[in-house]
């Protein structure tokens, strides 16, 4: 029989490297590969769409400011979480998130179902000075979000990068028309990269998220993003037992 000798590995760097890689990749393969193979990983639900240019900028600010270090975006399927935050998160809901913001630390509450819970005014005030509305809060102040103009010159490039990893933003007429079919004309216009800057400004005008219509602030983008979190899927249209079968 083949007699394995430690020495063979320990004295041969190349072999050691290969064997180490093999050992490490087992963990990854076992956990990740099946998700691509198993048919029922992603729930088939309506309504999930990519972020608009403004929301996407807000999402990038969310990441820049490290909000994810204190906030998760993943309501787990437990009773206490469902009672506090709302319906548990679906895999389908983060299919356009690159990278997803599930997070692993909850110093503050989960934000996966935040959209519509508060008014824009509340978010602005809370982000500038959290303790002015929640006296016992330990969340930091983010006053510069209101002062900083949003730099959206590169929004087209950001969307192109996301398109490269599979988010259906469009760069030509054909892709645009596919989006009209999939997401409706209003959203398809938002997802069209050549018009991204105009769409972004139009959404700020219409939404006036930060209460100051005179300029596009980082606050506008972040609040637009926060207000869309968890609102895309209409759970009143889904039978709970259907979601059970996707696990």
């Amino acid at each position, binding site marked *: 029989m083949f007699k394995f000798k*430690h*020495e063979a590995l*320990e004295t041969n760097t190349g072999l050691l490297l290969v064997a180490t890689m093999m050992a490490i990749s087992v963990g990854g393969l076992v956990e990740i*590969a*099946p998700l691509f*193979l*198993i*048919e*029922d990983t992603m729930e088939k639900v309506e309504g999930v769409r990519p972020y608009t240019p403004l929301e996407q900028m807000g999402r990038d600010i969310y990441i820049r400011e490290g909000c994810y270090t204190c906030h998760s975006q993943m309501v*787990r*399927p*437990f*009773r206490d979480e*469902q009672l*506090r935050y*709302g319906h*548990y998160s679906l895999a389908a809901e983060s299919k356009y998130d690159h990278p997803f913001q599930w997070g692993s630390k909850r110093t503050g509450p989960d934000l996966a179902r935040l959209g*519509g*819970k*508060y*008014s*824009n*005014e*509340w978010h602005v*005030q*809370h982000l500038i000075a959290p303790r002015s*509305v*929640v*006296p016992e809060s330990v969340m930091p102040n983010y006053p510069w979000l209101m002062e900083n103009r949003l730099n959206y010159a590169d929004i087209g490039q950001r969307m192109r990068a996301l398109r490269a990893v599979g988010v259906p933003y469009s760069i030509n007429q054909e892709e645009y028309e596919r989006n009209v079919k999939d997401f409706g004309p209003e959203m398809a216009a938002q997802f069209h990269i050549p018009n991204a800057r105009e769409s972004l400004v139009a959404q700020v005008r219409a939404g006036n998220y930060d*209460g100051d219509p005179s300029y596009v602030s980082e606050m506008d983008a972040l609040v637009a993003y926060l207000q869309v979190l968890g609102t895309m899927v209409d759970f*009143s249209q889904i*039978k*709970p*037992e259907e*979601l*059970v*079968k*996707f*696990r």
Partner: protein
Amino acid sequence: MAESQEKPQGPQTTGHVWDGDLQEYNNPLPQWWIYGFYVTILFALVYWIVYPSWPVGQGFLTGINTITYVNSQGQEETWHWNTRAKLLREMQEAAAQQRPWFERIAQMPYEQIVKDPELMGFVRSAGRALFTDNCAGCHQVGGGGKIGHYPNLTDDNWIYGGTFDKIRETIVQGRHGYMPPFAEALSRAQIDALAHYVLSLAGEPHDATQAAEGKNLFHSHTAACYYCHGDDAKGRQDLGSANLTDRIWLWADVPSATDVPSKVALVRQIIAGGLNRGNMPAWEGRLSEEQIKVLTVYVHQLGGGQ
């Protein structure tokens, strides 16, 4: 420390030798540890059989464990164990336990709920939890509100009405208070006169001559304040326009300003700039019908229900 009784053995080595003299000690793990390790492997084998585990092709081993819940048609349905099925069943079990409460609350008219001490005990504890999770960020813990931003729900002063039906309506559909800005329609002097009049209505110090001028303006077509705030300036609950004749201020923190000029400045700011900040989110769809009813009773009994 006691000396080891055993005769010290010569160190065992793995037998590997580097650079001619560099050796590696071999200290085998204790037996109990090794057997513990075998037990965990055995445990994993059992676990694979009972719970969903290995991926196979386009599916996975579902395990022999199952969970039974009630589907939307009211029929019992069984599925292999998973956290979503478990949650569904737990929610249904909990709902069954609370059903007697929620059913009574759903069926009873408000007036009777309030008179039932047992039910009110339930409303107070369930209501407080719901209020803390959903409302306290704005109305503050306990419902005291915040001048300049969010109304106090514990007093008997109501913008949209303090009856059960009105409170319910507020929670279900949300509210949005709007007052137009008057900076362009009125001159600075006119706005100041109106501010003095508004201060006089609330029993605050003011200039009587200016207030008299403001009173005329208030009821004139130029300013048309009366149109929304009413001839008596007591506000209209259908518009959510504030009652200007009481000492309760929501938007301008007049009572905490110490001298007349700063009080006037606060009211001037409101009249000139208008108000578009009063946004109460709608809770229909976010909270269930029963939860909204519990909250309605809870808010009603915070102090000022009518």
